[in-house]
């Protein structure tokens, strides 16, 4: 077994750390690993081209952007903000914790498409979380508003990742079952789903606690923010 192909991994890891353009370093990583494994340059380009073509479905998700853009043009973000600003007692914590719970529960019963960074987070949930913060704490500086949006995106990911495996028919459960069968071990998808529950519960508890801590920090930071930074 040769360790030379790992050079491509090294290129990618160092490149990300140095914040180089990710497209260039992914291409470079593929070329280095491919050459190290004995392919010639044309062979690497062909292998990458084939894989790129086979994975076009990954980019199909961008088709939602014209719709999201049209709705934002019509005031979708503003409507999401208005709704939340009218709810007394809404906070960044309550909005994002509720979203985390809903996202995780929906994923756990197989409703995976009810969410998404482009379809839910950008036009709806992130503006709602920001509005909740500003309704309670007054206008916030841009840095804190960015922090809120980053936390919103994180809640989407955590909710989805640690909800979906509780559902029996999801890809990762089927992958596990198939892999174990190849190795002569038979498990039922339901067993795998059940053993995913403890982690799902812990994920919710840990992340909800972190959202609470973030909210407290936000309250403190908004008090100490210099007036000049306020919009």
């Amino acid at each position, binding site marked *: *077994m040769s360790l030379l192909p790992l050079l491509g*991994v090294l290129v*990618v*890891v160092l490149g990300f750390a140095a914040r180089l353009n*990710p*497209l260039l370093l992914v*291409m470079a990583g593929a070329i280095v*690993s491919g050459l*190290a*494994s004995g392919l010639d340059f*044309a062979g690497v*380009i062909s*292998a990458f*081209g*084939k894989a*790129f*073509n*086979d*994975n*076009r*479905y990954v*980019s*199909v*998700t*961008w*088709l939602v*952007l*014209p*719709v*999201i853009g*049209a*709705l934002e043009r*019509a*005031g979708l973000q*503003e*409507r999401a903000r*208005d709704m939340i600003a009218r709810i007394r007692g809404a906070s960044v914590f309550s909005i994002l914790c509720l979203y985390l719970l809903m996202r995780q529960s929906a994923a756990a019963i197989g409703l995976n498409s*009810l969410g998404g*960074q482009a*379809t839910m987070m950008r036009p709806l949930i*992130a503006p709602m979380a920001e509005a909740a913060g500003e309704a309670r704490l007054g206008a916030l500086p841009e840095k804190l508003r*960015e*922090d809120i949006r*980053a936390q*919103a*995106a*994180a809640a989407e990911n*955590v909710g989805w*990742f*640690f909800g979906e*495996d509780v559902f029996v028919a999801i890809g*990762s459960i089927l992958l596990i079952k198939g*892999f*174990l069968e190849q190795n002569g071990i038979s*498990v039922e998808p339901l067993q795998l789903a059940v*053993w995913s529950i*403890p*982690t799902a519960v812990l*994920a919710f508890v*840990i992340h909800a606690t972190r959202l609470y801590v973030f909210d407290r920090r936000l309250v403190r930071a908004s008090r100490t923010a210099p007036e000049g930074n306020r919009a």
Partner: protein
Amino acid sequence: MIGIGAVYVFAGLVFAVIALLSAGDSGNPKRWANTAFWGLFALSFLAGDYLGDFGNGLLVLAMVLIAGTVGLGIGKNQTTTVQQRGTSARLYRNKLFIPALTIPVVTLIGSFTFKHIALFNPAQITLVSLSIGVIVALLLARVLLKQPIPAAFQEGRKLLDLLGWASLLPQMLAALGAVFALAGVGQAIGGLAAQAIPGGSRFAAVAAYTIGMAAFTAIMGNAFAAFPVMTAGIGLPLIIAKFGGDAAVMTAIGMLSGFCGTLMTPMAANFNIVPAALLGLHDRYAVIKAQLPTAFLLLAANTVLMYALVFR
């Protein structure tokens, strides 16, 4: 039958429109770079199956060089002002949510029902459903909210310009994963991991498996790529064969340990890098930073859980 081929044609046409709109945007200093980039994206969707492997390789190389050296610009398109959006929001109120929720709802219903209809190819039915949801939502936005279809494409271009290079990264990383697999990166890492483990302790074996899953997932950007390698390298020979652990517990929690790695890495671009761009965050790693403490705490919790449950 309507299948993924029709979806690719639809996507190709949308990207072609984006390229044309970019070409007509004299307010973008890099408009020709944008035109070429989105034009090549359109070509890939429309003609990728006819270009051959080397042709597709040259196509993606050209896209990478355009976005990585010349760089993509941000277009200037006419859009509504903040005041107009506020007025429109008060006019349409909750009607605004109907087209927004149409996409997930149609995708959901389509995923469950379209496979029973002979017109549709059951493979990749989710993407077919998503595309239909997009078309229905566009029409609803036209009818309910009076949003012209051309304006939708201008707004779509604005969001794609905001993404810039990040729009290509998820597909690039998927292709990188395939090339890594071809080059034997998985076996090399699995071999290294298996050598690094002292055979003695049960806890060491469990920790090596959960942490290995997270680390390898972080490198590959995908728990599915890490799972077979780590499970064959550490899980099966040590936790199950040597110490008699339970396969269902080990693999379920092992996969979820991999997901902790997904939260940590820019290699999982569609989850971690794309949202930072979509939400206009100045730090491209801001989402990862928001996730890191959860990822590490949950990885530790998974390790303890597996140790407590797998040897019952």
